[in-house]
């Protein structure tokens, strides 16, 4: 042989073909093409080039053949080869020689049986794109996965471990184990020992009686010198089946194929789970729950790996023992099937779980896992429970921290309580914390979730708004957190009882404490009562006195009013009445507020009381609440003023009646005045009664009861809101009753008109009276002095004046009549509108209790009649 000349590989290949087949060049065309195809498609080796390993293998092979001397010889030769340094690809050569190695003890068949094993052994790749030999994928080499060597190795190992179980038909019982070769175990990466390349030739025995014969005679190598290998199904990394395995000439029986595909399923399931955990464990945004899920899956996979390594060790044992192994303890496909049944079920569950949990995180993930636990199979349930325990451990941790410390550290938004950092402390209670409904795990009910939210909110409220820094240990004497996942699992065994009781206990304690703080330190209830007394005109004497004092002030135009004057008057009123006995806390919050001035307003229109709230109390008395209160105050104040005016009118009437008795011509007018006044009085009276007793008192009573019994701040806030809503709607202040309110305002305006009219009437009447009395007096005086009482012209003048006066009376009469008419019209309209509103039945009933208006207005009759009919039937 000459030097290694550079002939092209094709030529060389052709030469080789000729040589081996012993034919001329022309005849080997077919084989040559085949050879080219094979070599072209399998361009790079699928295994690592480790010379040492190959040489070890060769030695082992020789030892198996009981040729120790030869093994030693080989070592010598190998060393020589290494020193010579001529060859560049020693490994290739050695590998080639190894794979062409034949066992001389073999019967004369030329089946290079050992090459089966060797081939299969070496053929198993290290990476995921396993085994197959004739299905090359140049990119599927370890070279392209340098960084994933460890993980890829793992997965590949597992895959190849199981799925690359070569099925061989073996020639009979005896020899053959030489073909058992294990792959490059030593070069495993750490834990990759599991199932690292197993090449098995398994005696296929369908019965324990041993592998007496291959199930099909044609499978035996004795028949055909086949160097074909059945290939295994291979799966590549994404779990899809690629590459059907071509079963080579050795027709493999269908049962073998079935069995092996069943075993291959394990590999596929494993890959799926592995992919999930790999992709998510590196993803930090997946959150703690997701991480614990991946950890749980990983744990399960480790168990699986342990099984694989046990199987591998078993094989190793068989391997080492060589030929004399008894068939009974050998690892057959059937045995494998049985042993891997349980793991397969487990893996199936996990794979299904993984599918179901795709794309979920946080509380959703826990819900998904929990949903899977609802199964009748006890093993599956146990498995899911275990995983659920691990998965929900972070959630429970969050929960306990939230309800015992009020702290929320949830960077990945997994917990079902969300906090809005943009909200400031004054809106803390209402806006800052909310429930993230999607993240509520399915084993926590909505009610519990709300309670949890409330507890944490209360704690935060205490800390930030009430500035109460008592450590939570004081609030909840028995608080503890779950430190281990075991607690979480235990919790699930008794979810209803223990968990609920924990939450309830925390809820009661915290809410009670919060209410205590609010009541003691911030006197919530006192303030509530103070609102009632001052803004809702509860403190009658004070209000009356205030009105008395304010009357001269408020009659002036609004622009001339000064706040400090009014405040001074307020102070006086406070000091003079029972209000002085209130606590100074309350009194200092009471204040006068002047509303916006429109042109033509008198003081009455712009005056209002005010009550300042701040701090924790502002949570209950929010700004909207305060504005509601002011509106109600306005309304009540006006009504009160009407009452006041009418009282004045009545007073005037009573006082002047006697005086004006001497003027009989006024009696008609006066009578009219009286009648109108009493109508008005009745109306206003009933309104006041309705407002005070049926609206205010009843609602207040309800509110007070609820507040006394309230278990937490939310209840108080809700009750308070209900109270305000009912007052507003029944005081005709809400949007629906705007027309009614306008009517009422019109009534009030009429009353004021009347007051003015009456005032002028009285003034002129009294003036007239005064003049007459003066006249009489003068007359008497003169008579006493002996003169004529009155001269003729004086008398005439007097008469003229009296006549003039009498002439004005009809005008007054007509004016009054007009007023009356107007007034009554407005009242009718008001009553009619009232009829249409169901909720104000009481008011309408009261106002028209003797059907006086009904008689006058036919429009009122039918509807009134209808209700009256019903009412009377009730009575």
């Amino acid at each position, binding site marked *: *042989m000459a*030097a290694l000349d550079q*002939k092209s*590989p094709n030529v*060389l*290949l052709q*030469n*080789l*073909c000729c*040589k*081996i*087949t*012993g*034919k001329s060049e022309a005849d080997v065309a077919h*084989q040559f093409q*085949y*050879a080219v195809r*094979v*070599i072209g*498609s*399998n*361009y*790079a080796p*699928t295994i690592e080039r480790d010379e040492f390993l190959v040489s070890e293998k*060769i030695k082992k*092979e*020789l030892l198996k053949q009981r040729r120790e001397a030869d093994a030693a*010889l*080989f070592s010598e*030769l*190998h060393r*020589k*080869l290494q020193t*010579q*340094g*001529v*060859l*560049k*690809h020693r*490994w*290739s*050569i050695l*590998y*080639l*020689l*190894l*794979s*062409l*190695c*034949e*066992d*001389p003890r073999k019967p004369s068949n*030329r089946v*290079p049986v050992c090459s089966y094993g060797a*081939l299969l052994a*070496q053929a198993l790749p290290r990476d995921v794109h396993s085994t197959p*030999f004739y299905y090359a994928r140049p990119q599927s080499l370890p070279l392209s996965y340098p960084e994933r060597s460890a993980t890829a190795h793992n997965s590949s190992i597992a895959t190849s471990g199981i799925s690359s179980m070569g099925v061989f038909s073996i020639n009979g019982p005896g020899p053959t184990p030489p073909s058992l070769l294990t792959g490059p175990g030593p070069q495993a990466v750490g834990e990759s020992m599991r199932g690292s390349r197993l090449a098995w030739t398994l005696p296929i025995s369908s019965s324990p009686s041993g592998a007496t014969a291959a199930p099909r005679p044609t499978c035996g190598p004795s028949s*055909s*010198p086949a*160097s074909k290998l059945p290939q295994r199904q291979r799966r590549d990394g994404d779990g899809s089946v690629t590459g059907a395995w071509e079963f080579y000439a050795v027709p493999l029986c269908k049962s073998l194929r079935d069995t092996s595909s069943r075993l291959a399923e394990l590999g596929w399931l494993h890959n799926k789970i592995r992919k999930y955990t790999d992709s998510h464990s590196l993803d930090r945004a997946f959150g703690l729950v997701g991480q614990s899920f991946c950890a749980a899956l990983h744990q399960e996979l480790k168990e699986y790996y342990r099984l694989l390594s046990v199987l591998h060790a078993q094989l190793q044992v068989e391997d080492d023992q060589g030929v004399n192994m008894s068939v009974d303890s050998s690892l057959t496909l059937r045995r494998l099937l049985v042993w891997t049944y349980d793991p397969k079920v487990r893996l199936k569950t996990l794979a299904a779980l993984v599918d179901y949990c795709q794309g979920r995180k946080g509380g959703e993930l826990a819900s998904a896992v929990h949903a899977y636990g609802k199964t009748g199979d006890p093993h599956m349930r146990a498995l899911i429970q275990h995983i659920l325990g691990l998965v929900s451990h972070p959630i429970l941790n969050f929960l306990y921290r939230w309800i015992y410390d009020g702290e929320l550290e949830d960077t990945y938004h997994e917990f079902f309580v969300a906090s809005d950092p943009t909200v400031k402390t004054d809106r803390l209670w209402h806006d800052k914390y909310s429930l993230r409904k999607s993240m509520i795990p399915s084993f926590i009910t909505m009610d519990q979730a709300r309670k949890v939210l409330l507890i944490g909110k209360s704690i935060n409220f205490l800390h930030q708004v009430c500035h109460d820094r008592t450590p939570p240990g004081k609030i909840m004497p028995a608080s503890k957190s779950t430190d281990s996942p075991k607690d979480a699992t235990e919790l699930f065994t008794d979810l209803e009882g223990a968990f609920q009781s924990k939450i309830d206990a925390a809820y009661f304690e915290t809410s009670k404490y919060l209410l205590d703080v609010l009541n003691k330190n911030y006197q919530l209830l006192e303030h509530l009562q103070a609102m009632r007394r001052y803004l809702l005109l509860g403190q009658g004497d004070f209000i009356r006195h205030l009105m008395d004092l304010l009357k001269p002030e408020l009659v002036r135009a609004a622009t001339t009013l000064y706040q400090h004057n009014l405040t001074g008057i307020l102070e006086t009123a406070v000091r003079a009445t029972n209000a002085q006995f209130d606590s100074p806390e309350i009194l200092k919050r009471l204040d006068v507020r002047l509303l916006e001035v429109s042109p033509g307003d008198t003081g009455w229109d712009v005056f209002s009381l005010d009550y300042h709230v701040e701090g924790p109390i502002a949570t209950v008395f929010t700004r909207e609440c305060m504005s509601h209160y002011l509106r109600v105050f306005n309304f009540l104040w006006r009504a009160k003023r009407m009452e006041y005016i009418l009282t004045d009118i009545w007073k005037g009437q009573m006082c002047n009646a006697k005086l004006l008795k001497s003027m009989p011509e006024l009696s008609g007018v006066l009578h009219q005045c009286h009648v109108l006044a009493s109508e008005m009085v009745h109306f206003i009276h009933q309104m006041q009664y309705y407002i005070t007793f049926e609206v205010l008192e009843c609602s207040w009573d309800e509110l007070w009861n609820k507040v006394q019994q309230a278990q937490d701040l939310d209840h108080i806030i809700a009750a308070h809101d209900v109270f305000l809503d009912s007052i507003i709607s029944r005081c005709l202040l809400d949007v629906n009753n705007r027309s009614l309110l306008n009517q009422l305002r019109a009534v009030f305006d009429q009353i004021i008109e009347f007051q003015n009219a009456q005032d002028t009437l009285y003034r002129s009447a009294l003036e007239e009276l005064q003049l007459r009395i003066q006249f009489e007096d003068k007359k008497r005086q003169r008579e006493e002095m002996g003169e004529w009482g009155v001269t003729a012209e004086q008398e005439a003048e007097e008469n003229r004046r009296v006549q003039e006066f009498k002439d004005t009376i009809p005008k007054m009469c007509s004016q009054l009549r007009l007023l009356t008419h107007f007034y009554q019209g407005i009242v009718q309209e008001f009553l009619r509108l009232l009829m249409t509103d169901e909720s104000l039945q009481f008011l309408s009933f009261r106002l028209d209790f003797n059907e006086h208006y009904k008689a006058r207005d036919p429009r009122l009759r039918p509807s009134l009649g209808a209700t009256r009919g019903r009412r009377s039937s009730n009575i």
Partner: protein
Amino acid sequence: MASPANANMNAVRETMDVLLEISRLLNTGLDMESLSICVRLCEQGINPEALSSVIKELRRASDSLKASENGTSQG
């Protein structure tokens, strides 16, 4: 000039001898010529796995051919 070449040649020959010895030990059935072709192919970077499978296939093919020929000739 010739001596390094000669030395080279010697080394090569020795290597081939060693390889032949190994091949004989392992009973590969390769004769010198085939072996040298294989060595050359491997040195050029051919995948030994593929190569060995080719060789096996060729052997099998030739064996089966021979067997059928024998059979026919006998019959």
